[in-house]
């Protein structure tokens, strides 16, 4: 029982890391209907930039963190200007392909500037001591992740539901041409949503970077969160959080109890198996919007 509890709690906190990155994903999808294959690279860049401000320039962490956020917004704007703007109105699949190429570019950019070796936040931001909740132990950095995940959830869910800008952003995702005809600036919406997406990922990057150092392998997160976003439903922010947490818990529990029978490594594919099963029952994930089928 105690073991089970530990598994669930660890799953939840790891899941909150997935949730955070998944949310960046969902935010971009929700307002541009682009699947961003470079999300993992956003995580990577965010982590490196923060590390550079902090360890490289020796700035205090709060300042380094804020500057990282500023940088993310800047990056979102630049990407919009250079890459996304010319693609407005083009087939979505081409834009998705561009994000794949963008991932390559960002990754090699990082390796040119910071190399490929693992770097760590020095001195560490969070205590290495585990925090005890009864018999369950959790590292401090994960608690921060959980906090940020829910903070962003609250902010963005309200933003899209209630503000006019939020509604306009959803309109753009739905139909760019018509949105333009309403005077909605598709460019601005792209810039805003990619900035937000980059910002959220950067926060994820800083936190994950503090768990086990940073190197380009961190970009692998981009793929890991796919099951999470899909499970939650592509355009749902709350779904991304729930998807992330669910995947975290499931991989832990299935890994722990099934490894014995299947010879190990179940943890890595468990999320995908669960994903297929859930999708067969709920084809748009838990909270995704059903595509309108009408003639």
């Amino acid at each position, binding site marked *: 029982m105690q*073991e089970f509890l*530990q*598994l669930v709690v*660890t*799953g939840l906190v*790891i899941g909150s*890391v997935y949730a955070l990155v998944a949310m960046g994903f969902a935010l971009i999808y929700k307002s541009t209907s682009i699947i961003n294959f470079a999300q993992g690279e956003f995580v990577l860049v965010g982590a490196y930039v923060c590390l550079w401000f902090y360890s490289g320039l020796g700035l205090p962490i709060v300042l380094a963190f804020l500057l990282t956020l500023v940088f993310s917004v800047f990056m979102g704007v630049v990407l919009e200007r250079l890459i996304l703007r010319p693609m407005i109105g083009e087939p979505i699949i081409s834009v998705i392909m561009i994000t794949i190429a963008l991932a390559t570019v960002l*990754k*090699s950019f990082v*390796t040119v500037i910071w*190399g*490929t*070796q*693992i770097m*760590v936040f*020095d001195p*560490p931001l969070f205590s*290495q001591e*585990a925090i005890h909740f009864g018999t369950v*132990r959790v*590292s401090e950095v994960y608690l921060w992740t959980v906090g940020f995940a829910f903070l962003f959830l609250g902010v963005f869910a309200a933003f899209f539901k209630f503000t006019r800008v939020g509604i306009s952003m959803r309109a753009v995702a739905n139909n760019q041409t018509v949105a333009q005809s309403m005077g909605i600036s598709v460019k601005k919406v792209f810039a805003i949503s990619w900035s937000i997406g980059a910002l959220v990922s950067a926060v994820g990057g800083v936190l*994950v970077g503090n*768990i*086990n*150092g940073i*190197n*380009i*392998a961190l970009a*692998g997160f981009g793929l890991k969160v796919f099951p999470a976003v899909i499970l939650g439903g592509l355009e749902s922010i709350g779904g991304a959080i729930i998807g992330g947490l669910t995947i975290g818990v499931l*991989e*832990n*529990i299935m*890994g*722990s109890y099934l*490894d*014995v029978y299947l*010879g*190990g*490594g*179940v*943890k*890595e594919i468990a999320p995908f198996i669960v994903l297929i099963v859930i999708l067969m029952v709920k084809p748009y994930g838990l909270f995704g919007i059903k595509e309108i089928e009408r003639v």
Partner: protein
Amino acid sequence: KEIKVGGIYDITGPTSDVGKDYGTGAVAAEKYINGKGGIDGDTIKLIPNDYAYKIPEAVNLYKKYLSVDKVFVIQGWGTGDTNALKPLVNKDKVVFLSASYDGTLTDPKENPYNFFIGTDYSTSIRAAIKFAKDQGAKKFVFIYPDHPYGKNPIPAGMEYAKEVGLEIGPDQIVDLKAIDATSQLLAMKNFDPEFAWIGGTTASAAVIIKDAAKLGLRTKFVINCWGFDENLAKLAGEAAEGRAFGMVPVAPFGADVPGMKDVVASAGGQSYTVHYVKSWVSNLVMAEGLKRAKKAGKLDAPGLKAALETIKDFDTGGLTAPITFTPTDHRPNTTLTIYTVGKGGSMQKIQEVTMPRDPKQAGK
């Protein structure tokens, strides 16, 4: 005259965290060897290329080196590509020096043209088990990633552990990119071994060690060569102290051995990891082989192979234990140094172990 050498490295791919230093070390070694007079007057010319750990790309490079650059010796990298090129290497007769110290490559009957310079993983795992046993361990567990580098030595380890009478718990798989190993360690906790083998790379080793500390396990870890380097202490912090033991075939960068002077000098003030040194030695050995082949007047792949097989107790200046290849055994040596992480994250040498060179174990 120029002797061309193909180089297949991972500079931008998933193993680039260690691969880049390996590539850089090769270039430095080339310069060093040529500076020392090359191969009796001939220079070697390394053509290094990145394959980003994509196997088809490695095959591509290999074919280019053969058909365009006409090389007969190639410096390779990982287990995946070395394996993929094995049949081609045998068919085309090219000497292939890899950074994969996979034990299965050491049997010349199977793979006559494959060589490497570090103690093979199978010997490493045996030495680790022996060390654990010597420390009084009764129970032992294997932790490794689902990856050829992680999995290949496990059968050898299993067999040896049974031989020395250790009780083996269920294997645990921890991915190379894992950021958490709680579930695996909890599964292992029930068995509660005194020692466990980590067959992953540094990042995943650090995760395992940190989580073990977090969960309060008593288990100590013996780690294969790619999982124990200068970064481990940085990543795992205090958790590694007294808990992590590395099976190190090649001296860490800057270690206090005679051969290190040239290595450090070649780095021009930069600091590198042990992987730089590995590559350095690999090139040194290759150069020695080339020299002998040239002397014998057979500067081609079979000539180089034969020349390498005459190398006996080749002194690398303490960078590795002396190296010996024979026509029936391509294990370079069976000696490893065991390190641990000391206070403040320093790498501390504990002891050297030499395993018996059992001919039955060649290629296993």
